[in-house]
């Protein structure tokens, strides 16, 4: 594979017209049988001529963002100027106080030692494709920073930091490249100096969105904008969400044999539960299981029917600080208005990270928040549930969502729960804070236009699939007796669902996936039938 590799240099980003490196799936990451034959796997869709004509930013023959082509040279020049003005703002106190200090530190101190490279699952899965190296896109921004932002003699700067030519080709390719990293920040853990190339990707995305108005429509137009306008990134307004929850309540009541009833907008409740609204539509048994859990534990809880209050997602985290702030402020306002003791975030990694850590310095520390895993462990420890682990007598492995684990340090509660309720629980390797991203991080799981879905499977998600298969290596991968991947995060679940579909792993190996709360309710001994129904999954 590597023999026919094109030798790409940092400066090549601004050169030529077509696709910089046409990528193809390789089998650098070896999967065990029956998944070991690359030629038997689904292929990699090539871009259509229509897409090629419509967009710019050919970097690898994949389109995630879809950068519109400028109509003429004048327009192109304007875009370059807009980029430059955004670059200046990215390094100003006023416009980027949110991340300026870590950004500048990461700009100025990289030793170019490449120690971080092999921590990146995308770089590994691609067979070390140059453009996916964690330092590649970072190096482009570094050179631009030294060239245009830092004062000093141009000659000396060239000597110290190298040079790069700024043009529209570079900018459009850099837009796409900033969406080939899942912001998992595994590379940042291994940097001896403390440089964070994941952060640099994040800042690039912000520059494109906040100054140039360029962002993937799934995250912006259909994501944060729709959430702020309609109430949810799924498009559900308050009426629909109430109708859906009522349906789930009925479904659950039927299932468990007692009445499950979700209460709305209860003032002074102990807990305001904010789910990722995608759960309600795609994995209704997850919010359903939460309702049962709260009911059984006797918790005074509520959902909010106010716009944004019933959808915990905040895609702003992935690409735009202003959108991030708008949504988190709304969440905090709703909690304050209801006067609840705390917000509990549903099983959603990025929601937990925003409300638990990132948003704290925007909304203030008087709104208390708790992640779902800690919340559930506390309930189990209270002894209010009558749990019988034998009801979960099937192999279970655990996926660590980056945002909950590496970024928030919530590592053990989910494991302590599983050790109690899942007798056949086994770890993936590596796990905990050194886990691998599912490959759908930073919004990728909801992005699938053009051939980006294929890219997620062949590149960003391959390492995770290998980890899943390895975790079940002692089971028969040619038998479809159920095996469960527990992924306590909606975004990761979406990605894992796509991976398992893509490789046909449910049919071939009986690999199913779901959240943690479903496993807890499945272990509740008082229920007449098992909560988890593999035939329905």
């Amino acid at each position, binding site marked *: 594979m590597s023999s026919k590799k094109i030798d790409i*240099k*940092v400066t090549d980003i601004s050169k030529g017209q077509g696709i910089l490196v046409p990528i193809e799936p390789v089998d650098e990451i070896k999967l065990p049988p029956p998944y070991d034959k690359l030629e038997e796997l689904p292929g990699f869709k090539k871009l259509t001529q229509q897409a090629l004509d419509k967009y710019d930013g050919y970097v690898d023959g994949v389109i995630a963002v879809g950068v519109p082509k400028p109509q003429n040279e004048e327009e192109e020049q304007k875009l370059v100027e807009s980029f430059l003005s*955004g670059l200046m*703002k990215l390094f100003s106190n*006023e*416009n980027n*106080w949110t*991340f*300026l200090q*870590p950004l*500048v*530190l990461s700009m100025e*101190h990289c*030793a*170019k*030692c490449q*120690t*971080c490279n*092999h*921590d990146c699952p995308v770089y590994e899965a691609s067979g070390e494709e140059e453009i996916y190296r964690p330092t590649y896109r970072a190096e482009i921004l570094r050179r631009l920073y030294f060239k245009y932002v830092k004062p000093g003699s141009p000659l000396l700067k060239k000597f*110290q*930091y190298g040079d790069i030519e700024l043009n529209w080709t570079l900018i459009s390719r850099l837009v796409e490249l900033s969406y080939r990293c899942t912001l998992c920040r595994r590379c*940042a*853990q*291994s940097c*001896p100096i*403390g*440089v*964070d190339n994941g952060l640099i990707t994040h800042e690039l995305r912000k520059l494109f*969105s*906040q*100054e*140039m*108005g360029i962002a993937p429509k799934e995250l*912006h137009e259909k994501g944060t*904008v729709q959430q*702020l306008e309609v109430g949810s990134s799924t498009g559900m307004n308050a009426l629909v969400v109430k109708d859906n929850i009522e349906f789930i309540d009925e479904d659950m009541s039927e299932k468990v044999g007692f009445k499950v009833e979700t209460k709305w907008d209860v003032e002074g409740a102990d807990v305001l539960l904010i789910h990722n609204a995608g759960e309600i539509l795609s994995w209704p048994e997850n919010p359903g299981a939460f309702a049962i859990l709260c009911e059984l534990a006797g918790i005074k809880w509520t959902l909010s029917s106010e716009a944004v209050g019933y959808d915990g997602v905040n895609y702003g985290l992935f690409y735009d600080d*202003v*959108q991030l*702030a*708008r949504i988190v*402020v709304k969440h905090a306002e709703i909690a304050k208005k209801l006067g609840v003791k*705390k917000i509990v975030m549903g099983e959603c990694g990025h929601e937990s990270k925003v409300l638990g*850590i990132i948003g704290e*310095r*925007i909304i*203030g520390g*008087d709104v*208390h928040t*708790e992640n779902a895993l*800690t919340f559930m462990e506390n309930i189990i420890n209270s002894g209010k549930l009558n749990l019988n682990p034998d009801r979960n007598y099937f192999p279970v492995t655990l996926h660590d969502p980056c945002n909950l684990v*590496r970024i*928030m*340090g*919530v*590592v*053990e*509660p989910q494991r302590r729960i599983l050790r109690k309720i899942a007798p056949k629980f086994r770890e993936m390797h590596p796990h*905990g*804070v050194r886990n691998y991203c599912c490959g759908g991080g930073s919004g990728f799981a909801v992005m699938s236009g053009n051939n980006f879905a294929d890219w997620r499977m062949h590149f960003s998600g391959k390492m995770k699939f290998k980890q899943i298969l390895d975790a079940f290596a002692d089971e028969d991968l040619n038998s479809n007796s159920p095996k469960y991947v527990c992924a306590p995060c909606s975004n990761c679940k979406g990605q894992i669902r796509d991976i398992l579909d893509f490789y046909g792993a449910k049919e071939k190996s009986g690999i199913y996936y779901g959240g943690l709360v479903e496993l807890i309710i499945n272990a509740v001994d008082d229920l007449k039938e098992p909560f988890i129904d593999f035939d329905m999954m």
Partner: protein
Amino acid sequence: MILIYILTILTVITFFVAVISKIIRISSAPVHLRWELYPVPHEGGGKAKYGGSRLEEPDWWEKKIHKDSLGELKVMIPEIVFLKGVWEHNKQLWIGSYPFHFSLYLFIVNIALFSIVTILKLLGNDVLFSGNIIGQIIYYAILIFAWTGSVLGIIGTIRLLFSRIVDPNLSKYSSASHYFNIIFIGSLYFTVFLWLISGRDFVADVSNFYYGFITFSTAVEIPTIGYWHIILSLLFIAYLPFTHMSHFFTKYFTYHKVRWEDEPNLPSSKLSKKLMEQLNYPVSWAAPHIGADGTKTWLAIATEIPKKEK
């Protein structure tokens, strides 16, 4: 000789002004949003070991926050002394990088030892050459550090230079200054090595230079190679803070102010006041959905209902 003394003074001034102004620049940056990365070693209660945080505790805000400073030292010391991070994640690089850095440490120790004996000599105690046992120990310690440092340093330099040239992973990302810096530091090791084998009393030469500098004496005599070494060292010290090699002190910030920085934003704390100020910074991002005009603040923009696009 006087010219070298003047150069020394200028170097010391340049070095400290550059370092201090960089420290001021970094630490006066606005408070950023939390961006820590686990494991955070000051997490108490055994959590640091597996990377846990206080967020694992129900209602953590009602509990006392344990900050285990010893835990930070447990990570920092092996990191500084052995370059543990490089060892764990990049052994090939460590083979060159460690001797290269360790030699610098030895030279820094020698600078400290020479400074101490010079001060003692000023106070009337020529400890190195008065024949007492402590003086003897210091004398030989300096000599051993100089020998070890120069030999290891030369080995490290050659290895690093070799890797940077031969390994495409490194050469692709190396600017001219990378090679220059390695050769520059290598020249410090090499000139010490030549000085040591020149047959002169190295320790006496250097301590005479230090004493001569403090007393501004022109009577000091050092060999030509000594001049070379001293001038190169001074130029290097003055150059250092202006390069990415300033990581020798900025690493404090990348670790303590970013990777491990997890201070909660408690109501009416100093942090919350500072953040309030920052939320009043004006925004001028130009994308239409931001709705900024250069005067509207972050707070105003985050709380207003954004107008429909299109």
